[in-house]
């Protein structure tokens, strides 16, 4: 079920009413309702893969107890490995099996050994598998690290793993933050309700107006690269930067807003990333739930920056390489991750961290956009072709005809509104805030105008969220 569908709107209304008006007296009944609702939400897409979520839930619930009950460190570690191998095994099989087999065959062919490809399988990638496996892993790891006690409440734990607002595209919540919220009574507050609705409205604006508008032009250029010149690639890449931001930050805001309607607080996932003045700062603003996950469960265990300089740089690079691979089974994502790793290494070497000022913001934006070329290109060869064309054949800007030219203009308008709002928040937060205006009618009209813009400028019935594929 997609957030940007009427099915979801009706589903949300029904669950909300049942949650606060039928089973409101006992939070355990509410958890049962959320669990059922989450399985319906996921099963709407493909009910067969509910079994994977159920297996992941059972494994980590059981493993959590075994780790906690084991007295010696070695046994605890063995149980932790059960969780790691099971979750990463699921991820590896469904997401990476064919990629590694095909890469191996290609590599062998390049050195003269031809294999007939009989090993690849027709595997469907279950939506959200990268998100919920990481979330359940964090539960077992945090118990192993003694940051968390396992819960006896299986329903609460199962609801934590499958919580529908963030099940398929995050934010990847930590067990230490979310599990305790399932174990206590939630109170309906006007503040949560109001904030939740506002976050959802802005999330839909980001998705339907910014991302989906930009996508029309980006797809027209990136899916027909032989027909376009460098200038069109530059414009399409900048639009893609806003497309993926609008798409993913939009999803996150809708997820956070939906959670608030049920009395849950999820972590912030994006904090105006394109105002970062260095790449390292960018990664403290972009997909925060994933970058902190990698920081806590990979980078720091590798030694983080409390090691020799060479080892520190190695840790940075490996973390980003794996982060790239997490995004998808394609060399384009690995190259994107590696490039970001190299950026961070370069920043350490030239001591470019903690910079300020518009020049650094622009420079960072250019670097990030350059990396997005690998992320969006359909293949590594395409990415290099695009980069080469940008530098050798600027040519003319494709403005298309009919839908494409309109899409470009709508996208520019939408990005203009987004930049205005975010610039104000970043630098002039106290000035002219409609959401903090003392007159209620002004505040409500402000949000009504955003809804009007969604209905008037938004793209409807066209696309799902990009991060569903990860």
């Amino acid at each position: 079920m997609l957030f940007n569908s009427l099915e979801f709107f009706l589903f949300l209304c029904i669950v909300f009413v049942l949650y606060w008006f039928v089973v409101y007296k006992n939070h355990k009944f509410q958890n049962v309702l959320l669990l059922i609702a989450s399985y319906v939400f996921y099963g709407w897409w493909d009910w067969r893969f509910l079994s994977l979520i159920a297996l992941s839930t059972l494994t980590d619930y059981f493993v959590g107890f075994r780790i906690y009950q084991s007295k010696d460190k070695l046994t605890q570690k063995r149980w932790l490995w059960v969780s790691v191998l099971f979750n990463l095994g699921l991820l590896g099989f469904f997401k990476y099996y064919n990629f590694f087999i095909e890469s191996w065959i290609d590599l062998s062919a390049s050195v003269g050994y031809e294999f007939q490809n009989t090993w690849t399988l027709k595997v469907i990638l279950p939506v959200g598998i990268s998100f919920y496996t990481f979330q359940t892993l964090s539960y077992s790891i945090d118990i192993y690290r003694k940051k968390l006690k396992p819960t006896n409440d299986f329903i609460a734990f199962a609801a934590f793993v499958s919580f529908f607002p963030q099940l398929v595209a995050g934010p990847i919540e930590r067990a230490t933050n979310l599990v305790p919220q399932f174990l206590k009574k939630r109170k309906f507050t006007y503040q949560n309700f109001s904030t939740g609705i506002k976050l959802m409205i802005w999330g839909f604006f980001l998705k339907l107006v910014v991302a989906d508008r930009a996508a029309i032009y980006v797809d027209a250029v990136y899916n027909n690269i032989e027909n376009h010149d460098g200038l069109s690639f530059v414009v399409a890449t900048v639009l893609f930067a806003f497309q993926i931001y609008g798409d993913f930050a939009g999803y996150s805001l809708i997820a956070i807003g939906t959670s608030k309607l049920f009395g849950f607080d999820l972590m912030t996932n994006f904090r105006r990333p394109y105002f970062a003045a260095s790449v390292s700062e960018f990664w403290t603003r972009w997909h925060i739930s994933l970058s902190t996950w990698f920081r806590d469960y990979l980078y720091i265990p590798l030694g983080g920056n409390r090691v020799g300089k060479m080892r520190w740089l190695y840790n940075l690079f490996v973390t980003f390489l794996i982060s790239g691979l997490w995004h998808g089974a394609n060399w384009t994502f690995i190259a994107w991750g590696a490039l970001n790793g190299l950026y961070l290494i370069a920043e350490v070497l030239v001591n470019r961290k903690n910079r300020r000022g518009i020049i650094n913001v622009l420079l960072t934006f250019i670097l990030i956009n350059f990396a997005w070329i690998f992320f969006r290109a359909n293949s590594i060869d395409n990415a290099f072709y695009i980069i080469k064309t940008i530098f050798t054949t600027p040519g003319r800007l494709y403005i298309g005809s009919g839908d494409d030219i309109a899409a470009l203009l709508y996208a520019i308008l939408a990005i203009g509104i987004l930049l205005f709002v975010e610039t104000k928040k970043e630098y002039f937060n106290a000035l002219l805030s409609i959401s903090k205006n003392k007159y209620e009618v002004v505040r409500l009209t402000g949000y009504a105008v955003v809804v009007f813009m969604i209905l008037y400028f938004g793209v409807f019935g066209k696309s799902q969220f990009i991060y569903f594929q990860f």
Partner: protein
Amino acid sequence: MIKKEYKLALIKLVKFIVILLITDFVLGAISKQVFFSQETGKYARSTHAINETNAKVLVLGSSHAHRHYVPKVFEEELNTSSYNAGAEGQQLLYHAALQKMILKRTTPDLIILNIDEDFLYTSKEAYDRLSDLHPYYANHRRELKPILGLKSKLIGFKLFFRSYQTNSTIVHAIRYYASPQIDYKGYRPLFGKVKPSDSTDEILLNEEDKKIDQNFVKVLRDLIATAKNKKVNLVFVTSPTLQHVDNSKNISFTTIQEIAKKENIPLVDFFNSKQFVSQYKLFHDTSHLNNDGAELFTKLLADKIKRMKWINN
């Protein structure tokens, strides 16, 4: 305490919905005003066809209709009025909806539906592009709901909002205010000649993967029934082709032929017409006639209409 919070949330929600409806009503009315004040462009042509034209010979169809039928030639040859309501990129669902809206107000003597051979094959675009009809929903709910309902069962709810009815139309409006798009009673000529190097001897179509959409079949039958009910002569016409086309295995086209035969609807087939095949000077590109080709084609068709007495004059 909790009840107080519920009450507060409910009151604020109601206030927000009221303000939202007022905003939608006011801004939606402005956007509709902008939409219906367009004088040129595809929306202006559709609006003219739906709200104003009283032409006795009306043309419906996709870009082949829009670019191939010259109203002026019909008017000279048939001594009657004519309007070309062809719409580029649109398919059967759109044409059927347009026909219903037009026939609600006026009754032409003859409707010419230009047939594309793949009209009945499944097509996502045929459904997606129905959004061009949304601005007319408020005034033509009964005619549009069955067809728009094929795309979304909740269309009535979605189109409740005025702003959604004119979604994605403002750039089009601004564009043609700034640079008007000239047409001649709905017809827009193409100029220039196709080069022989752009064509192949015969078009081989891969029909194996194509499937018939039963909705399209139903809508075609409905279009015929609507014309019959209003006692309007309906003629199916295929446009001339530059290259020889073998449609014998095209299930879409053969199905249309069968329906036309069963329903007694004349089908004037210009596919592979000797006067046009390999006549590069009559084509703008491999698929569309240029102005010379369109005038010749319209004249030949007008002669046929006269001979067959499909209009009363």
